[in-house]
């Protein structure tokens, strides 16, 4: 029933595409999803100031060689997460919701695809999951 278990429960929903957690290798396999998940922060307290709920925030970076590739993987990612309710022992959880960030698909000008002079394209997607720990 730890925050780490909650983050792992969230990340375990990511399937059907290459996922890198915490760090992207020097020569990644495209396309991929890079995921970073925070420790769940307190999002609600009772009048007595005890913790009622916590919110897990995660950023997933969808990276591909073309815009179409990014969109296809983004669709798979959305299918995996949007509205889903992970089951994690010790937690009573709501559903995962995307958070609009108005970020477009854009080239990463600091990265060159090995063997080419082209840049990968990426788009970040933000997610939140609210829940409370079962006493």
């Amino acid at each position: 029933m730890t925050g780490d278990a909650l983050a792992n429960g969230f990340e375990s929903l990511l399937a059907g595409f290459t996922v890198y957690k915490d760090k992207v290798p020097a020569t990644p396999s495209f396309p991929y999803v890079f995921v970073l998940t925070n420790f769940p922060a307190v999002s609600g307290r009772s009048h007595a100031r005890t913790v009622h709920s916590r919110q897990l925030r995660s950023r997933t970076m969808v990276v591909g060689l073309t815009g179409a590739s990014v969109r296809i993987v983004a669709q798979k990612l959305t299918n995996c997460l949007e509205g889903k309710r992970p089951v994690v022992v010790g937690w009573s959880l709501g559903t995962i919701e995307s958070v609009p960030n108005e970020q477009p698909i854009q080239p990463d000008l600091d990265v060159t695809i090995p063997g080419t002079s082209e840049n990968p394209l990426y788009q970040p997607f933000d997610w939140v999951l609210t829940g409370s720990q079962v006493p």
Partner: protein
Amino acid sequence: MSDGVEEVRRLASNLGRIAGSAVEDVDAVLKKGMQNIKTEMQADVSGSEHFKGMAGSITYESRYSPGVVRYVGGPDKGRRGGALGNIYYFGTSRGGGSGDIDKPLRNEEPRTVSALEALAVKWAGRL
């Protein structure tokens, strides 16, 4: 004995007066809130070794439409350092994104909501 018509007329008249100044009143509250958000965003990025140069690009602008007040703020790509904004807040294909774009809004929200509630109480007293 009143038939209520006069009271209804007075209420309508008072509502009209409130409506006439409501947008202006709300605008003042939102503008102050937006200024607070801008100040916090600038303070946050000024603490970043790599991105402090973009602090001056953080600004805001008002967008009015009939009966609606809206403010939009953040790094302006037309200003020096503004193009770094999406990297500071959202990272790149290999991660990053150390800036928390929601924090200033989260911190400001209770203050602005309280100010709007105070406005509503003031309007109710004028009916």
